[in-house]
Structures are given as C-alpha cells and as structure tokens.
C-alpha cells in the first residue's frame, strides 16, 4: 500500500494542482480498507513523494528555492523547509483519507 500510494501521489504532485492531494486521498480512503496504521503510512507516502520531488527541483535550482523559503519563514535550515513540505502534504492526505474511509463505511452501512 505504501509503495502504491507513493507512486500515485508522486504522479498527482507532478501533474495536478496541489489540492488534488485531497481528492486522491478521498478516493484511496473510499476504495481501500483503512486502519490507523495504513492511514498513517499512506499519508506519509503522500508527504514523502512531495519531499522527493521538491528536493529534485531544489537541486536543479542550486538549492536557491529552499534557501529563499527558509529565509521567508525564518527557518534556521533548509531541512525545516522539507519537513514542512512533508508535514503539509501528509496532513492533507491524512484528513481526507479519514473522510474517504468514513464515507465508504457510511455507504457500506446503508
């Protein structure tokens, strides 16, 4: 599930607007049987795929992007920037995975 999610979110991050992370998470939550552990690893996959892509683009810019973002947010190091990316994407996925899972159970119950 983790690798599957990693692949899916990587494609989504590269090709679709940022908010489609939520759409993809709803779909995953709806069509996949989620438990807490699976929800956490899937969300982490979403965050990790974002970090990998961000790191790639940052390296292409000579680390200028992460450097500027760190300055913008008053962070002490660029690591904080990538942790931030990880967190934002993971939380987005987690919240909407939860909603997708709830939706599937509600549909199943009815």
């Amino acid at each position, binding site marked *: 599930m983790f690798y599957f999610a990693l692949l899916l979110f990587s494609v989504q991050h590269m090709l679709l607007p*940022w908010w489609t992370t939520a759409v993809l998470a709803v779909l995953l939550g709806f069509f996949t049987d989620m438990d807490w552990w699976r929800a956490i690893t899937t969300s982490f996959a979403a965050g990790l795929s974002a970090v990998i892509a*961000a790191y790639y*683009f940052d390296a292409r810019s*000579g680390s200028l992007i992460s450097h500027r973002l760190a300055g913008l947010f008053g962070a002490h190091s660029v690591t904080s920037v990538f942790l931030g990316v990880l967190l*934002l994407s993971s939380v987005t996925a987690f919240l909407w995975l*939860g909603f997708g899972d*709830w939706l599937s159970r509600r549909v199943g119950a009815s």
Partner: protein
Amino acid sequence: MFKRNRGIIWAVLGAAWLLVLGKGVGPLPALGPLLSLHNGIWRHHLQEWPDQLPLENLNGPVQVSWDESGVPHIFAENEADLYRVQGYLMASQRLFQMELITRVASGRLSEWFGERTRSLDEFFTRFGMRESAERTLADFMKDPGTATMLEAFSDGVNQYITNRPSDPAEYLILNREPEPFTPIKTIFMSKSLTFNLAGRSFDLYLSQIMKERGFDFVMDLFPDMEPMPYRDIIYPTPRLKSADSRRRGRMVEGSPFVTSLKSIPFFPWPSAGKGSNNWAVNAKKSSTGYSLMANDTHLSLTLPNIWWEVQLSGPDFNVYGASLTAVPGIVNGMNAQASWGPTNGTTDVLDFYEIEFENESSNRYRKGDQVVESEIRNEQVGLKNGRTIEIPVIKTEYGYVLYREGSRGLAADWLAHKSNNELGALRQLYNIRSVEDCFRAFQRWNAPIQNFICVDRKSVGLQHTGILPDRQAQPGRFVRDGVQDTASSWATLSNEMRPRDVDPPSGFVLSANERPLDDEKGVSLGWDFEEPWRGMIIRKRLSEKSKISPADMIRFQNDAFNLKASFAAPSFLKLVAHASLSQEQEEALLAISKWDFQDLADRPEGALFRLWFEVFQDLIYSDEYSVPSRDFYPKESRTVALLDNVLLDPTHSDHAVVDDRRTQEDETPEFMVTKAFQLGWEELKSTQGSEWKKWRFRDVIQTGIRHVGRFPGFGVDLLTMDGGPESIRGNKGKHGAVYKIVVAHGEDWPRAWIQIPGGNEGDPLNPNYARYSEDWAQGKMREAQFFKTAEEARRSCKRNIIFQPPKVH
C-alpha cells in the same frame, strides 16, 4: 477504524485545512499554491534566451548582447523597437518590482497586503496622485516621441508577461498573477519617486512648535540659513533683473498664521537625510586633459535595485547608463560626447493650507469674501479580501484636502503635481554634445527638482533643475491661512532664474543636496535643505589637489570621513566632565581624541561618537516641544553651532536650549554632554557587549539591503561597509548609494566605472540575484562596457539574441 459520527469532523477539518493552505492566514502566505509541485515555487524556471526570439509589433531585428556583468546592450533600427525590447528585458528581470512600485502612488498596495497598507493607499488617493498621474500622462502623450516610448515599452512588458516561463517567486508567495502593464504605471512610478524625493516639509511641525514656543524660538532653532561656518552653497546667485530687485533682503515670513487644527494627520514622510552626490572636474582640472564626472544617487537600498543598467543604441543615438524600474529609456548616463546625473534638489515644494468649510459636512470653503465649491472625485481603494473603500477626493484651489477637523480642513499643495515632460527631456539628452545642449534638454523638466550635472569633453556644468518656488515671495515655513491668503497659485521663478554654474574658476562643480543659494544675496529657495557635511568634504577633497584623476574620483566616492564629528567631537571633549567617568570611559575618550574621523566599519570610535551625538540631541531637544521624531529636530549644523555657542559664551541663549525645561535643576552643557556620553555608552554596552574596544561602527549603522517588498530572507543583511550618513558615502544603513558612476571623457570614447548593488537580476531564485552587493560595500567598481557598434558588442559578448519581427505568411 473511524466511528460513523466523526465523518463530519473529518470533512470540516479537511476543508478548513485546505482553506488555510489555499488562502493563507494572517501574515502566512497561501502555502498550497506556493509549495505546489505542479506549478508552485518548486517548478520555477529561469529565463532562458534562445539565439533568436520572435516579438510581435517589431519593425526590424533588434540585437541584444549580454555582457559578463549581466548588462544588456540593445541595438535597434528605430526607437519603438528599442523601447519594446527594453520593456521585454526589464520585465524578464524585474516584473514583480515593476508592479509593486507602481502600486505605491496609485494607492493599490492593499489589494495585495490588506489592512497593513490601507492608510498609505488612502493617503496617496486623497493626495490626488491618481488625477495627477492622468494629467501627466496626457501631457506626455502630446509629444509623439514620448508617446512612442511609453506605448512600445508597455507592449514589450506585456509580451513578456504573456511569454513568461513561470511567475516570479513573489507572485507565488502573494498568490497573485502579474497584471498587464500600461503607460500610466510608468507615470505612477515617477510620481512615487517624486514623492520620495520632494514629499517632505516641516510646515506642519513648525506650526505646532510655533504654537508652543513662538515665532522667535522657531527662527532661532530653524534658521533661514545654516550657521557659519557650517554652510555649503552650491551655486552663485542668479543675475537679478531690475524687476526682481524686490527680492533683495532676508527671507521674512511676515506675521505667520497660527493654525487652529489640533492634530497632525497621518503623512508618510519620506525619511530625512536623503543624499546623493555629483561632482565633475573640467579639462583644465583633470589629470587626463578631459572632463571627469562622478555621480552617486542615494535612495532606499533594495533588492532588486531601483536602477537597471543598460546600453540603448537607436537610429541616431547611443547611450549607456541606468534606467529606472518601470520607466523606458535612460535617466542617468552618458553618450560618446557627454554625461549627466542628478542629486536631489531638496527644495521644499509642499505647502499646507488650513481650509475653512461652511460647516462640518459641506465641501464649500471660504476664500476671502467668497465661498468656493470644491471639486469632488470619488475613488476606490481595493482591499485584499476583495472589498473596496470609497474615498471622496476633495480638491480645492489650495490643493487636495488630507484631513478634516470639524469645519476646518488641511489641504496639501504640492508643486510637483505640475509636470511638464520629464521623459521627453531625458530622451532629448541622448543626443547632447555640450553642457548647453544638456541645459536646453532640461527646459522641459519640472519635477522632482534635481541638481543635474552636465559634462562634455572639456566643460562641466550644474543646474538646479525644475519648477522652482520663489520662497522670497512665498516662504512656506508654516501652515498657511486658506481664508485670508488668497494668492493661492504658486509663486515660481522663471527658467532663466534657475541657479547654474558652468566651468567656475575652481575647475569643478558639485552638489550633495545642500543649500543651493545664499539667500542673503537676494533669491531664496527656502530654508530646509540637507546637511552641508558631504558637500563641504567633497569641496575640500577637490580643492586639495591641483589635478584630479579618475582613480581620485572613485576614491572620493568611498571617502568615510565624518566632517560633523571633526567639528563636534572636539567640543564634546572640551565639555565632558571627566570626574564622573570610569577608567574605561576615559580610555575611550582618549581614542576619540586621537581619532582621524574615519567611520571605519570595524572600529569603535565612529560607533561611540554616533551614539553620543544622537543622545545629546535627544537630551537637549526632547523637552523643547512636543514633536517626537528625530526627523524633526533642528539641523545637525545648528546643534554643532550650539556647541560652539555654549563653549564660547556663558551667557548665550543656547544655554537655555541645553537646559531641561522639565526639571528644577539647571542642566549645564557639561552635564548634558557627559550624560549623553554615558547613556550612549550604556546603549552600546547592551547591544555590543561590555568590551568597548570590540564595539564596531558596522553594528550601529547596520548596512543591509532589504527586499523591495520587505520579504524576509530575500535581502542581504549586515554588510561590512565604512562610512556613515555624514560621509561622502552617505551610508545610512538601509539607505545609501544605490548607483555609482565615474565617467572619464576622452578624445574618442569615454570610459566609465559603475556599481549598482544587486545588479540587474531581480529574480530572487536566480543565482545572479544580489550580485555585486559585497563589491559595492567594499567600494569596488567595475568598468562599464560601452560598445560603439552592434558588431563590437556581438564580438565581445558571449550571449547574443536577435529579437525578430514575426514572419508573415
């Protein structure tokens, strides 16, 4: 895993999270679009230039050669093509800055920044900037050459916006898209700069002080002219015609009007102490046998820089120099035969009138025995959340009404609203061959008033250029009475009366924003100018040597000598009471007594003196009147003279100024000087540690270059740079020499050395962003590559692009 009734919580939390990411909260930007891997900041693309690039509306091919310093050299067969490509290139490096800077005077910052900038937007709207810009644009467009400049430049900017590889980082942070560029944006940029240079006036505060302490007190602390010998005068007095003989005599206010207004409204005063320098030596004074020119313009230090370096070669001209962001053409620069550059004239062109309306809600006001209807124009100021505020802009014969207090109002009459065709004047400069040609071009220059230096191969000249208020006829020192003072139009001097100097016997001309004229000789341009220190030291440096070389010119630009300290420190040392000082403090005083008055970045003397003088001024002036800002203290030259007065004369009236009126005790100069030293000492101790020998001037002055939109992390902090505000370097920390040039004219072709901190590149994600900042701080210059022909440029530059008209099928 999830209970059924928690679904709604997931949805609400998820939606709220998306909303926060999508819209941002408070100062936090919208992180979703900003960090998007699809089209956010991570996918930022640098501008890449192919060998050939099609551009709509071109009439012929245009060659652009980029030199190693990142300066574009543009060669076009006609002017429209030249400015079209200039617009395209400038936008490729400065798009965000161009839009931001034009939003200031147009009162549109709040659409981006919300409540934070609302008062500023409301001010510029009430101040009449929009109507003024429309009028100016209409004036500019009457001249076909100027219209071509504006329209072609805008078209070039817009074509870049259409073709841009990605949005500049700042737009992503603000979650906005670039807006199409129009000619009026260029006008708003020039209005904004004009306000920055000519938007200061003491009138409101002097009226307040006069109400508290009386007319004589004001005239004593804010005299018509700087006390001798702390005075530098730029120009000889213009020849008076017989009709002007009435002007002779000291500037007198008459019986000044006392305002009944209780409050001083919000006014975004441009900071005091703005400085620029220009000087030139003629062929006789130059070691090369040809004229030399130096110019450094001092403004807020920003990244990107306000200037953009470029060579423009058109059908009948070839010029090199600096363009202003969002403005086509070149402002400061040179051609093969001549060079030119400004300093701010600093002449006060802002007067205030107290208006008496019929009643609190009426817009009809009294003027003598008449009642006059105001012109009302309803404007809108947009906010970040999409809301708009309606602003009724009230225009009277005395200017725009800024503020109302019951049936009274305050109108601001700004002479700089009256434009001519400044862009046309600059365009005319491209072909000048002599000093006289240069002065002729400036006939069309009204505002802002500048000391323009004009240099040809052999001669040098300087002119106080602009529409000049006749301050003998209209002193403008206090708020004026809108009811009785019915002569509401400005009294101005004719163009023939513009102060100027050409090839004086000394062989040099100079200006540093100081007093242009000796009022006692009959013509007055007002009392309020910059301090004389930089002008005096430049004059000294140029007089000391019989022949001046280009290297001398560069060295003088980097001069860190603090002339004010050389006058004030000996007085301080005579007055300080040693008995109350510690051993360490005595050691520090000994260091100051041996100091050569160079404000060196890593030395403590400059830091100590700076704090000492500032605190001394606080101590002696803060009790005198209720105007709180250091910006509205008496001039430093008056403070230095006060030190002389109290030292030489125990009965001098300045002893009363030194005394703290709020206490029963009699504070002596010795007491205040010692207290100022000790307070300054404590401040340095708290900010820089207990070892005074490790205190550094650089940590007091804190030289740094901020991002133009004040985005954290997009600027350069704490550069090591010698010199303070009083030195030729004019280093105020966040304000300084944003452009420096030295031109050495020659028989065939001039050479020039230039520095623009930050360089041309304005994209924070480009490796060349902030380029030359360190070099600039260290005083290094680089030689400009001013090419004679397109062929020479193509051979010398590694990167060449041909902009082509689109192919017709």
